[in-house]
């Protein structure tokens, strides 16, 4: 997949408080809208480093993308205060996103917390390219943090919700429903994004027996492969080494990752 890198000032055309301390911004940007699901925007905030945020929606025809984030610190706080009409300074789309699903195989989207939005963009982008719609499993700590459930349903998808505290859906993590679904589907493709412990559990579950693409998070400097800050230990062509989430990732195959 060719990486098209750009640097733009992208106007905010919509701003939504989507959940308790979660905000989605829609940006007008034909450049960013060339993104592949799983790629990210590196957004300028007042801190010393830009903030990486995945695309929650990619509308190529309208030249619009969404970013959906949780307010966790100074940068996301600042982002949450931006208003329609202001512009964001964004490097992107960056990184290697998810590969398109093989139409001949069943696929499942497994998202946790702020890992859900990039999976929505994957669903939206590829739903029309596969005969079987993906199954969606999304989890969060509590029901207030379940993101984009209605959006998935708007695509006509079946959505299984899990919460740690049982305040909505299945009580527990996404792993239970995933295990059940995998037991019923052969030759499946798993697309997952979420907190590291969740991704580890997915990798443990599939044990290299099922194709699983995991989108990782790591603290980043440059975001474009120059500083080697964002690494994870992973097996590449040249064996085990620290590989860059910003360029070799954020999406890795589960069996590449050494945990």
């Amino acid at each position: 997949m060719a990486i098209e890198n750009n640097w733009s000032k992208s106007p905010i055309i919509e701003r939504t408080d989507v959940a308790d301390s979660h905000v989605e911004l829609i940006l007008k940007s034909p450049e960013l809208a060339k993104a592949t699901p799983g790629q990210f925007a590196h957004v300028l905030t007042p801190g010393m480093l830009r903030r990486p945020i995945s695309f929650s929606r990619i509308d190529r025809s309208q030249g619009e993308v969404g970013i959906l984030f949780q307010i966790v610190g100074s940068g996301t706080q600042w982002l949450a205060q931006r208003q329609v009409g202001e512009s964001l300074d964004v490097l992107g789309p960056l990184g290697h996103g998810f590969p398109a699903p093989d139409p001949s195989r069943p696929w499942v989207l497994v998202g946790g917390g702020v890992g859900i939005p990039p999976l929505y963009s994957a669903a939206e982008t590829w739903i029309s390219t596969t005969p079987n719609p993906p199954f969606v499993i999304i989890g969060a700590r509590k029901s207030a943090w379940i993101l984009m459930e209605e959006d998935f349903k708007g695509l006509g998808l079946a959505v299984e919700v899990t919460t740690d505290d049982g305040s909505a859906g299945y009580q527990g993590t996404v792993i239970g429903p995933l295990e059940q679904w995998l037991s019923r589907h052969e030759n499946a493709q798993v697309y997952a994004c979420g907190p590291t412990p969740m991704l580890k559990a997915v990798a443990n579950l599939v044990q290299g027996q099922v194709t699983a693409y995991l989108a990782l998070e790591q603290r980043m400097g440059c975001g474009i492969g120059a500083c080697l800050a964002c690494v994870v230990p992973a097996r590449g062509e040249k064996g085990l080494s620290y590989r860059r989430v910003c360029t070799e990732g954020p999406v890795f195959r589960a069996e590449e990752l050494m945990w």
Partner: protein
Amino acid sequence: MDLRVILPRGLELANPVMAASGTFGFGPEYSQFVNIDALGGISVKGVSPEPWTGNPPPRIWETPMGLLNSIGLQNPGVDVFIEKDLPFLRQHQPRVIVNIIGHTVDEYQRVAERLDGLDGVHALEVNISCPNIKEGGMSFGQDPDQAYAVTHAVRQVTNLPIMVKLSPNVTSPVLIAQAIEAAGADMISAINTVVGLAIDIDHRRPALGGITGGLSGPAIKPVALRIIYEVAQAVHIPIIGMGGIASATDVLEFLMAGASAVMVGTITFQYPDRMNQIINELPQVLQAHGFTSLQEAVGAALPGKSTWPLKEEIPYES
């Protein structure tokens, strides 16, 4: 205004602004955001004779106006650099400064030897902040004798212009700088990062995988200027200044403190084209401060050179 900088052994920069080692990869990474041909030079990520793995993540952490990193000098080794990265650099204008690293004097020598005489390599920058694994792990840059030994060893095997990079983490940077000069270095680059640490209070542990890290960015600018100002009075070789530069007026501070050229690192992560901007603004900033050439500004705030009668003026701020 002519921004050229003439440095020892024929090293000539089109302008005094270079990319600092480790913040600009090997050149191609940023080339889609930066007009790299406009840069005076590029100091590439540190290269060692064999590949280095680097430190466990997390490797980077934000601090107030600063950045902590513990990359641990991960690099693919000098052979991969020559095969894979040098061809790209060779096609571009900036002078290529290869930042070299080693765990022993011998390793430094090997990588320097390997690079000597190669087309497209214009200078070596000896990063002496690496731990000396034969001498208990304290860095080469923290002891004048060891700094001398590394510099001298590298000098033996190359005719390239050599700059040796000062560590700020010492009681007396001047003593190290003098040892480096005595050992035959052509230039001094200063400063490398300041050792620091952050705590990840949510996880009750040091924030970085490498525990401590190197502090860079505007926070360390005063430390860099102090060291450059002191070293400039103690050695006779040119100084390449860096540490927290974010603007053309920052560059002017470094020049006045005694630097002949500068490198720019951390700010590039926020603003990839900041070096281009600085180069564009520099002539006008120099002029506005009464300079008719770049060279005039170098050391302008040093004792003797300063146009202000220091003794008279300082007690009575105007």
